[in-house]
């Protein structure tokens, strides 16, 4: 079981939920489980099966692009956070 935290911008298409509990032992399979529950999220988060350029996903605070992307293993009880990419400065 993995918890995915959704940003405010995505909660309206997830029935208002701030967190969704999913199955899956990689980031990609966890996302699939999320999309099974809330199909509309698929097009918001991914494009042609890849993570959209301006979507960031963090596993316990680490950007998955620094890890193994969608192949990154998710340990039991892991927490994924989805956030929009924001330019800094």
């Amino acid at each position, binding site marked *: 079981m993995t918890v995915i935290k959704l*940003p405010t911008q995505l909660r309206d298409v997830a029935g208002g939920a701030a967190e969704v509990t999913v199955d899956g032992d990689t980031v990609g399979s966890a996302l699939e489980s999320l999309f099974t529950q809330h199909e509309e999220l698929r097009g918001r988060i991914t494009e042609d099966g890849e993570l959209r350029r301006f979507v960031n996903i963090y596993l316990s605070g680490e950007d998955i692009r620094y890890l193994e992307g969608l192949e990154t293993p998710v340990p039991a009880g892991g927490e994924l956070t989805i956030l929009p990419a924001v330019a800094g400065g």
Partner: protein
Amino acid sequence: MNAKSLTCRECGFEYPLEARYVCERCFGPVEVAYDFSGLDGDAESLRRRIQAGPQNIWRYADFLPVDGLPAGAHAGLPVGSTPLVKADRLAAALGLGGEVWVKNDAHNPTHSFKDRVVAVASARARELGMTTLACASTGNLAGAVAAQAAALGLESYVFIPSNLEEQKILSTGVYGTKLVRVRGNYDDVNRLCTELSGERDWAFVNVNVRPYYAEGSKTLAYEIAEQLDWTVPDRIVAPIASGSLFTKLKKGFGEWRELGLIDGADPVMNGAQATGCSPVATAFAEGKDFCKPVKPDTIAKSLAIGNPADGPYALDIARKTGGSIEAVTDDEIRHGIKLLAETTGIFTETAGGVTTAVLKKLADQGVIGDQERTVIVITGDGLKTLDAVRGSFESYEVDPNMNDFITTVEGQALVS
């Protein structure tokens, strides 16, 4: 106001001018779009209207997303109208036949260009009814937000990486802000603030009111054009952290060209990064149109953004204008700071060292023509990063008498 909507840069979807930074459909960044057709008169009367405005960025209010001129108790700190200095000795030191000019934005109230973006963000935040300013900062933004909040009588929260330079911490805390030191790097700070911005009713200047904030950088382009007597330089060298300043410089020149205020082609745009945090320069060199995030390790902490969201746009601009994005080492950065200081009398922080070092690199490569007019954008003050120059020069210690001075300093015996 001439701003009409927030438009997604990826899919083009439009939103009203609210506190929003991301497109709900594709998560792309949204940007302020304008309709300037309501601006009366020809180019000459527009120029006169600008010149009759105040000696700060609000002379460009027609081109910014604000309702009229912030005035009275809402005026805030006066920002902008910084010097553009012709740097003949710097040009000579680099063997350049053309002109080099230094846009010295350390001349702002908190000594960096961030005062521009914060002025616009806080003006719009107030119009939207928000009463608390906040930011995620690599240092310069922290001071700018804390000072502007103090000037406007607003509450503020400032989030910084805990290992920031002491000068930046001290010169931020003094304004009475709630200073939050986050155990992590800038990208960690940014992530925390992105999460918080969804849960708090605050104006995070570089998160939920970012579209307005980013527009403030255009005023650098406007000022450069106005100071060069309504012309565009041939080349701009500017630092890249998130890539926002770089892209807004281009937008500023482009808007004024469309309005007939200036003529000619876009400047060649050269971006400057530190080797220790160069995701955009690396992507440029590899011919890619996206940036692979990196873990920053450089003395140029104000540029230490490992995951630059505007990187793809900066890459596009560098390529389309015939420019490039270069990276320089920490030693080259220190040398750049010294070079600028010794040839112009302008002491810049590490980011300005990066920019000056990239100018030197371009000069060494021979890509700058003899007839070119180049402007380098110096974004911050050297007093904020004093460690970068520690040990970079010699000094003398003498007893208070002529003899010791002459022996020690001038190296010769007193001749009677």
